[in-house]
């Protein structure tokens, strides 16, 4: 028994460790520092194993600490007018019921199970039971410690706190046993990652009961909670026999793991399929143009759904919000001044908003998946002249798509500024409008440029460039940081316009210089 546990732990570790190492290898600079035969380095493995053991110990507590902190104690503390202990027990009770079918372990197809049971042909029953036992033990220990700590902190009596871990384990076992019974009857194994309509409905309902009732001033009385918990414990004890006596773990796992495998296979092709699905099958779409303009027009028209439709939707939302703002000014004139002041210092905030509404990444993704992925294998498509010609056409297109919501937003902001009391310096109107438009152009240029310079995908449509990820992350962080910046609109706007102009010029130069070499499939 110890051996099975050790083997399964080893197995899980090995691929965890390897995934960590693989992850490290994807980071640009770090990649160069790591040796080629990374996966064979013993010292690294030992170190990683130690980390994994520590992680295993921590994971028994860490998740539960967070769970109690946020979902139970934290949430319960929100209901100021309810007794703290009562709200605590109430939330805990309903959440545990959700956990009993959403977090079963037994019906969660994971890779380590696949490796152990299917590939390594370990005894499915022994493997499952030992790991299940181990998981239950972790639940007992983790919930006992956390339950006592947080429960007593909320004023829950000790005896009730002690019951908590046994209730959680009991109800998990009860539900698992009932799922096994239903497998015996129907031959269909329950998969906790593929919940049906009703299960999701139950989750919603239980969440509503957990967090909604206390808001209405209703909580489950202590004695009732204790009775439910006791029932859970007894149910668990009675169900243990079924779990241990069940003899078809291999069949259950095979069924679940085959779903996992199709899931893993599907992941690669899913991205591709999803991209293909957005291609419009409308046979009326035609183009009278020639060459790359022909290609581009058909691409844009057949991808209307993901390109123009979302831009139009965004425009509508912007329009709606602006009108809402104006209406608010009309109904409550006293907010005008506040809004006016806000607008004069809040322009940096719009960097993030423009970042969020830009369709650039979606555009380049579709470009790759449905167009460049295939055409880049043809040599005529890779001729420098052609690459640059198409770049120019695409740049025009992506700017056009993003410009509509930006122009509406920019004009709207200028209008809001005017209606909310105006400004002494009329140049502000121009600066607001132009800087919003400039930001939109900036993001369009930015995404297309990094796509052409770093072309991050390989022929299998996998993202292969660590650098690309880094650039995207940095973009996000910078835009996010901008939200904290408070700067006079005029100053920021002028700086922003200047920056965008310089950036666009530089980016285009870089593309013209390097893209013919960098714009190719990764290997």
């Amino acid at each position, binding site marked *: 028994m110890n051996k099975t546990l050790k083997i399964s732990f080893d197995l899980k570790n090995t691929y965890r460790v390897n995934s960590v190492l693989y992850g490290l290898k994807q980071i640009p600079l770090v990649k160069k520092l790591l040796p080629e035969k990374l996966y064979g380095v013993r010292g690294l493995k030992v170190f990683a194993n130690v980390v994994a053991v520590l992680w295993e110990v921590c994971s028994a507590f860490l998740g539960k600490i967070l769970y109690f902190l946020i979902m139970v104690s934290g949430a319960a503390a929100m209901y100021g007018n309810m007794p703290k202990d009562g709200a605590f027990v109430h939330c805990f009770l309903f959440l545990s019921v959700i956990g009993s079918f959403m977090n079963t372990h037994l019906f969660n197809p994971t890779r380590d199970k696949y490796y152990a049971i299917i590939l390594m042909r370990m005894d499915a029953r022994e493997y499952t039971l030992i790991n299940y036992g181990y998981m239950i033990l972790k639940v007992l220990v983790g919930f006992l410690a956390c339950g006592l700590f947080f429960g007593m902190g909320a004023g829950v009596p000790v005896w009730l706190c002690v019951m908590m871990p046994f209730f959680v384990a009991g109800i998990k076992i009860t539900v698992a046993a009932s799922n096994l019974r239903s497998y015996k009857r129907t031959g269909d194994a329950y998969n906790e990652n593929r919940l049906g309509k009703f299960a999701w409905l139950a989750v919603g309902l239980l969440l509503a009961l957990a967090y909604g009732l206390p808001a209405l001033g209703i909580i489950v009385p202590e004695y009732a909670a204790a009775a439910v918990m006791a029932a859970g414990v007894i149910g668990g004890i009675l169900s243990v026999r079924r779990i241990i006596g069940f003899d078809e773990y291999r069949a259950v796992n095979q069924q679940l793991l085959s779903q996992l495998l199709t899931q893993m296979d599907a992941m690669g092709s899913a991205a591709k399929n999803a991209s293909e699905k957005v291609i419009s099958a409308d046979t009326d779409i035609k183009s009278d143009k020639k060459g*790359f303009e*022909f290609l581009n027009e058909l691409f844009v028209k057949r991808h209307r759904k993901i390109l123009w439709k979302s831009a139009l939707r965004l425009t509508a939302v912007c329009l709606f919000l602006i009108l809402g703002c104006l209406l608010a000014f009309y109904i409550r004139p006293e907010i005008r001044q506040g809004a006016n002041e806000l607008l004069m210092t809040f322009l940096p905030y719009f960097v993030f908003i423009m970042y969020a509404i830009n369709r650039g990444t979606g555009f380049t993704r579709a470009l790759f998946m*449905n167009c460049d992925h295939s055409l880049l294998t043809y*040599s005529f498509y890779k001729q420098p002249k052609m690459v640059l010609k198409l770049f120019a056409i695409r740049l025009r297109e992506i700017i056009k798509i993003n410009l509509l919501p930006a122009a509406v937003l920019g004009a709207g902001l200028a209008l809001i500024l005017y209606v909310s009391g105006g400004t002494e310096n009329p140049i502000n109107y121009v600066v607001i409008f132009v800087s919003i438009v400039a930001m939109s152009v900036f993001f369009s240029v930015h995404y297309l440029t990094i796509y052409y310079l770093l072309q991050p995908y390989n022929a299998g449509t996998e993202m292969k460039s660590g650098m690309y990820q880094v650039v995207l992350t940095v973009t996000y962080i910078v835009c996010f940081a901008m939200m904290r910046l408070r700067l006079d609109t005029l100053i920021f706007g002028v700086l922003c316009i200047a920056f965008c102009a310089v950036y666009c010029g530089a980016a285009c130069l870089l593309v013209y210089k390097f893209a013919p070499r960098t714009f190719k499939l990764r*290997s």
Partner: protein
Amino acid sequence: MKFVIEHLQKKFGGKEVLRDIDFTFESGKIYGLLGRNGAGKTTLFNCLNRDIKADGGTFWLEENGVRRVPEAGDVGYVLSTPTVPEFLTGREFLKFFLDINEKSIKNVRPLDEYFEYMGIAADDRDKLLKDYSHGMKNKMQMLVNIIAQPNLLLLDEPLTSLDVVTSEEMKKLLRSLKAGRITIFSTHIMDLALDLCDEIVLLHGGVLENVDKENLDVGEFKDKIIAALTEETDE
């Protein structure tokens, strides 16, 4: 015309995939490129098509004693998994291709004639390429590469997943196309190589070598190839 590769090298990490490729191909012949799994056949093609950068060495086309570096238009590369732009119809893809290459393609014919030539049915020509079958996509890819009349045609296991009829059609087509150009055909299937190709070239241990058929019969020739491919290399 000749296609000459000299001292071509490519390393991945510490592994020398192409050690020292030194070979002269002659036009009018189909070369069967055989090699074991992972021998570097695709890497070699990718280097020749400039999809990846070689670490060392050169290659050139030589015509009437004049050497020149092959341009993009000189090379046609047909991949084992056909890749075609899914959002275009067969007809649109062909039109686009002809538009782009109008300067280099002589005597352009009506689109339907090309489809006729490849055996692509009339009602399939206006379907989106994403709805084409594997074999049909393959035909489109081949067609586009043929129209361009490349001097060097690289074929990476193009017949492996085609049905028997399509596969025979393609073989016939390749034979009809071999005059005036160099065709290099990589495959795992020895019988296919022996059936279609004029010369057999082995990629083994990072080098290319010709296997001389001499006057061996098919069985003996196969044994010779297997022996050469299982030979220990000095790596």
